[in-house]
């Protein structure tokens, strides 16, 4: 069970409002006609920020023992990061089409 150090309900409402503000920033960025890679980088950074807040506060990881965080998250991020090993092949496919 989570500890009794949890936030008051009003603080959770504040966190949810903060997450909606981030979504608003994402939408505004989308219509700034940024280069796709810049937009993707910005959106991913903001999404990671949202996810971190959701995991720590809404999913109460901040109030659990630190061993839960250190057991689960580095391994998950490592697995998700390893998927990126295949991305250069997608760039190869794109460049092959350009060479034709």
């Amino acid at each position, binding site marked *: 069970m989570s500890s009794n150090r949890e936030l008051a309900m009003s603080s959770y409402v504040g966190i949810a409002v903060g997450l909606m503000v981030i979504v*608003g920033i994402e939408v505004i960025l*989308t219509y700034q006609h940024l280069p796709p890679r810049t937009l993707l980088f910005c959106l991913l950074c903001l999404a990671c920020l949202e996810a971190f807040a*959701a995991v720590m506060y*809404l999913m109460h990881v901040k109030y659990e023992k630190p061993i839960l965080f250190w*057991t689960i998250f580095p391994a998950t991020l490592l697995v998700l990061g390893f*998927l990126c090993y295949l*991305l250069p092949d*997608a760039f190869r*496919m794109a460049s092959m*089409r350009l060479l034709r």
Partner: protein
Amino acid sequence: MNQSELAVVGGHSIEMEASPYGIEKKKLGMWVFIVSDACTFGAFLFAYGYMRIGAPVWGTPFEFSSIMNGVLMTTILLSSSLTMLAAVRSAQAGDKAAVGKWLGVTMLLGAAFAALHLREWFKLIGEGWRLFYNPTGGAAQFGATFFSVTGLHLTHVVSGVIALAFIGRGYSQGRYDESHVETAGLYWHFVDLVWMFVFPLMYLMNAR
């Protein structure tokens, strides 16, 4: 010993070491499920990124109205996370009526999210988008990636609504306790968390 529990096995009381995580088994099980599900969604989103980078022309089907629909869906899902938190708090306080009320509101918000999602799907299908057909002449894989990623998420939302109905009923009948509500809440927040990646990557990156 503070970190130990007493259990009775075969008429003998034995001392069992407590979980190093300090959480119940069902909650730890939910975390393991969440990790595996995060990897599944990660693989789906990666496949989308791979195909998008490799495709010479990609479709941008979402007009401003669709983006606003997505913002509304996000608001509904975030609100449902708050009502789920209220349900967990009420369960910890032992207030059965409040648990039923907040779980009911969460289920309604989940159903509203699913309805808006299906409306967006039918709109795209009406415009000619299919799993392997792009009516604008761009990469045919857009439909495959969009419908599979959002379909997987929608399945999670619908499954969550059904699970909450079972948990709420069981809690009101006394078969389940507050830890069941808390574990169901963990799942619901995860569904919310996944949407925080699906919305920018599938909708905003494909906005006109």
